[in-house]
């Protein structure tokens, strides 16, 4: 009897509890266009939350009666907050309109400090490109998305046909990628072999956001973060199943297809398995890049064709919203012609057969946060070279470049202080050979470098969080070993190199300390000022340490004793908002570079088979002075029309050049660094509306010095590349699940030339049609 009573009471109590539960549901829409906002985060109090589905619909069930703080947020939109009150057994329908914001100062970034901070809270110049901003940019490649950031210099002479693009910042040489660190989801992708990054690897459709941190970041990341760091963050699934497929067609018979599928195995976006599959394919007939003079002289000039494709698969598991693991695998392959074909079926070309494997484990408990990354990045590079002059020459460069490692960070928050530390381990290696098919020569080069990094950072908030100070220090140690340079069966092609034949190159090591101290004072949400000092460095690359060979201007010899080059950067900056419509930012910097690496004459000469040429080698021989400033403003012209304007000035000069030999006639002192535009700027107008979203961008690139000697170049016929301007347009429209994008890059067909006289592609138009499901 008693048991029955208890059972009845329990059942009644339970039923009453169920009946007393409430729900809240509704739609999240864009306040300007009325379109649904998918994947918006809806948090009810601290413990309940959900994500809007692809139609912008959300629902939260099993809510006890009471008063709650409701918060709706999504990247690219102003966060909405309100207090709601729920009675028992009530279903509240609450539709929310989110106001889109182009400005990202309130967005959270992680790259600048390895901890989460609003951009406005980081005492440095940080830019974030959100998904919303990406939609307005007519981008064919990832670096196109970054091109409008003030002071960012993109070196991609042949558009999508470029096999080796580079990005530089803050007055550093425009052709050297090794002075800017590039990360994908926090994993460094600059190859140890040459410091380069393959900017063609990722599809724009995979990217969630891009964080750009200017100024040295070596106190956290170590090598390559001299001018700054760029972190490309890929998307993470939030819905049970979604997809996006598109095809686009454009200039030079360029065709691209993209497919993205993702899903979660549970309805709870903070728990369970998730997966993502992304793939793209592109091909193009290309165009003739060679100068008119080369076309006359060389009957073997052809269009530079391209074919590339990639697949990325990601699998992850969220234990909860703070703890999880994920692994991803990417395969990329391309075949890019370089515009000359004699006898080989595909002519001269470059291939990058690339495998990336990444694994991440992140967690948080109480005040402790941790992250561990493992990575394995392998690139099999193949270059086919053939030409017909006195006779026919055909050889292949086959190079395996491998970078693998483990990165860790641990953060502890105590009151107003966050201490972050970590250990990084990395090994980079190269194993390459030049195989000749028109002679018996084979040239081998190989080398490895182990790197260890230890870092520590302290973030302190004082004076009611108005004053923020960040201090950091990192120690890096690297060891070069297992190096070799060998020539097999030399003939006239390589016999001059035999004096450098060495199966066991000497080992060497270096170390670097990278301090940082920065502070900012926030007067209020509208005004802040900051100042910082940071030291960065670029390590020597394996190619300079273990490979000798022909380069422009002579013969390069390897040097294992190369040390890193350094930069000390002093910077001040300020941000201000006016009337909630205008945001401005200003940064000024002064940098002193030490031990900058340059190719210099050793004083010896060598007969390369077509005459005596100087022997040169990379050496740490110069001091560089760089200063400049950057200004940006974002203005809501109307409620819907957003204007962005920016300008950057850079002055980069060699202050002290010490040649290797006293009889070297070359003195670069007071010469300017090459390929650094003195002036850069852009103006963009973005107008989202219900008819067709429209954006227009006008860019200006200032004059750049052609060569280290700052002398008239015999091909360019000037000492500087001329300045030029381009205008880009993008029109986009979504109809329910279908979207159309028309991108017009360089609509006035402005052509420019590199130092070989090769020509850029000019106007590039693509039309994209796709669907979301």
């Amino acid at each position, binding site marked *: 009897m008693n048991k029955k009573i208890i059972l009845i009471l329990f059942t009644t109590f339970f039923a009453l509890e169920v009946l007393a539960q409430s729900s809240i549901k509704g739609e999240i829409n864009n306040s300007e266009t009325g379109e649904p906002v998918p994947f918006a985060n809806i948090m009810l109090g601290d413990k309940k939350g959900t994500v809007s589905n692809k139609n912008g619909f959300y629902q939260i069930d099993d809510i006890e009666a009471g008063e709650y703080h409701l918060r709706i947020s999504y990247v690219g939109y102003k966060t909405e907050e309100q207090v709601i009150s729920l009675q028992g057994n009530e279903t509240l329908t609450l539709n929310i309109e989110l106001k889109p914001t182009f400005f990202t100062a309130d967005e959270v970034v992680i790259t600048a400090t390895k901890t989460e901070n609003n951009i406005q809270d980081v005492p440095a110049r940080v830019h974030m490109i959100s998904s919303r901003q990406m939609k307005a940019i007519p981008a064919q490649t990832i670096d196109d998305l970054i091109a409008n950031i003030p002071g960012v210099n993109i070196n991609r002479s042949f558009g999508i046909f470029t096999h080796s693009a580079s990005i530089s910042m803050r007055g550093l040489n425009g052709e050297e990628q090794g002075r800017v660190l590039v990360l994908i989801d926090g994993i460094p992708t600059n190859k140890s072999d040459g410091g380069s990054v393959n900017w063609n690897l990722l599809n724009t459709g995979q990217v969630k956001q891009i964080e750009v941190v200017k100024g040295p970041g070596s106190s956290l990341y170590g090598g390559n973060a001299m001018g700054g760091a760029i972190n490309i963050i890929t998307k993470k699934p939030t819905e049970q199943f979604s997809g996006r497929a598109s095809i686009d067609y454009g200039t030079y018979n360029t065709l691209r297809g993209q497919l993205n599928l993702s899903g979660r195995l549970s309805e709870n976006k903070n728990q369970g398995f998730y997966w993502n599959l992304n793939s793209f394919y592109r091909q193009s007939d290309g165009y003739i890049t060679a100068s008119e003079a080369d076309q006359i002289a060389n009957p073997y000039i052809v269009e530079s064709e391209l074919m590339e494709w990639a697949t990325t698969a990601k699998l992850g598991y969220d234990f909860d919203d703070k703890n999880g693991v994920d692994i991803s695998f990417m395969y990329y392959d391309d075949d890019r012609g370089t515009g000359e074909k*004699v006898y080989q079926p595909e002519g001269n070309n470059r291939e990058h057969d690339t495998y990336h494997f990444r694994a991440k484990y992140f967690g948080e408990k109480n005040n402790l946060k941790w992250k561990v990354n493992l990575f394995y990045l392998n690139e099999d590079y193949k270059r086919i070279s053939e030409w017909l002059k006195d006779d026919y020459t*055909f050889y292949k460069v086959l190079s395996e470049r491998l970078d693998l490692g483990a990165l860790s960070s641990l953060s502890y928050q105590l009151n107003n202080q966050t201490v972050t530390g970590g250990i990084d381990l990395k090994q980079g290696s190269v194993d390459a050979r030049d195989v000749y*098919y*028109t002679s*018996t020569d084979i040239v081998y080069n190989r080398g490895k470098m182990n790197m260890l990094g230890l870092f520590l950072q302290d973030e302190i908030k004082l004076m009611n969080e108005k004053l923020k100070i960040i201090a950091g220090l990192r120690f890096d140690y690297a060891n070069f070993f297992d190096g070799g340079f060998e020539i097999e069966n030399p003939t006239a092609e390589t016999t001059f190199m035999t004096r450098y034949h060495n199966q066991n190159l000497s080992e060497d090591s270096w170390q670097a300390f990278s301090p940082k101290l920065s502070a900012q004072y926030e007067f209020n949400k509208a005004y802040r000022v900051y100042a910082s000092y940071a030291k960065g460095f670029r390590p020597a690359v394996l190619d300079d340490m273990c490979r000798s060979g022909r380069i422009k201007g002579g013969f390069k010899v390897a040097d294992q004793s190369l040390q890193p080059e350094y930069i000390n950067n002093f910077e001040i900056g300020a941000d201000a908002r006016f009337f909630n419509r205008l945001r401005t930012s200003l940064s000024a910097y002064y940098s002193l570079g030490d031990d900058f690496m340059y190719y210099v004459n050793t004083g010896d000469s060598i007969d390369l088979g077509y*005459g005596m040429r100087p022997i040169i080698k990379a050496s740490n021989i110069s001091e560089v002075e760089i200063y400049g400033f950057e200004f940006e403003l974002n203005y809501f012209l109307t409620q819907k029309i957003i204007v962005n304007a920016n300008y950057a000035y850079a002055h980069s000069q060699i202050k002290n050049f010490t040649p290797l030999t006293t009889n070297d006639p070359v003195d670069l002192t007071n010469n300017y660094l090459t390929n650094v535009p003195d002036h850069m700027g852009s103006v963009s107008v973005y107008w989202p509306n219900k008819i067709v979203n429209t954006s227009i961008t006008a860019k200006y690139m200032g004059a750049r010095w052609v060569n280290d000697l700052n002398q008239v170049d015999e091909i360019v016929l000037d000492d500087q590349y001329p300045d030029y301007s381009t205008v880009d347009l993008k029109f986009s429209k979504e109809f329910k699940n279908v979207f159309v994008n028309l991108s017009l890059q360089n609509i006035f067909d402005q052509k420019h030339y590199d130092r070989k006289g090769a020509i850029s592609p000019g106007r590039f138009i693509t039309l994209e049609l796709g669907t979301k499901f």
Partner: protein
Amino acid sequence: MKTYKLFLFFCVLIFISCSEEELSETSPFILLKTGNEFSQSGDSIPVGGKIKFGIAAVGDGAPITNLTIKRITENEIITELDKGVFIKSGGLDTTVIFVKSNAEIEQWKFFIMNAHRDTASVTTTIYKGEGSAWGEIDYFPSIEIGYQNNQSIPNYVDLNNGTSYDETSVAGNESLIDLVSYYYMSSGTSSPTLSCPSYPSAREFFPEINDWSIQNSVLYDYYTTDNNLITPEQFDDAQNDSLLVNAFKPSNVSGTCKFCYTGKIIPFKTGKGKYGMLKIIRADENNTGSINIAVKIQK
């Protein structure tokens, strides 16, 4: 019987299943032609005399990509020819002519490679005969040649008879032209340059050459020139082809010779195998100027 048939069946199966690569590995082949017109192994040839070889080769499944000829004596190994080629079909069939050196015994090695880097070789031995067979030469003491932007002086030269042609008179005589000259700045250095119709840079400065059906080649020994190994006096004293032949170093040659300043001596060999030498009497250093050369060449 059944067992036998079964065994045969499996043999055939295995044979058929062999991949094409397993059945047909490339094996290039080279031989030297016989016949009275060609030098044979064991021949005795006086110093200065002509050595003539006929070469036949096949790549056998892959294009021939290299032909190398080496002259091996007691004292040295000279690479007389190391040429990249791409002969896809029909094989190689060519004749090469050299001049007998002073060595008592010369071993000649002929080597080919195909696009799979498979190789084949053949050797032959030539002995020094009695006497000397140096040949006569032609001498052209002064030939004026206009650079690329000089239309008042002829731009095209036939080295065999010292005749120069302008853009009008060259029509119909393109197959005789061995030499053109131009001026440019090479990596910041002034460079009066000698070239030949087959060389790409010559076509850049004289684009009309692209339309010539025959574009002759000349190989200039730039090493001897750059290092001033032959003096103008030696050039002036040459009465037969011994200096012309001995001065030419085949391992450092190109179809273009840069930095041909006044006073330089340049050994060369035409595409038809004639050895020669030229002296720069005067070289202007601007692209509307001209260059004056003296030429000695085998008859």
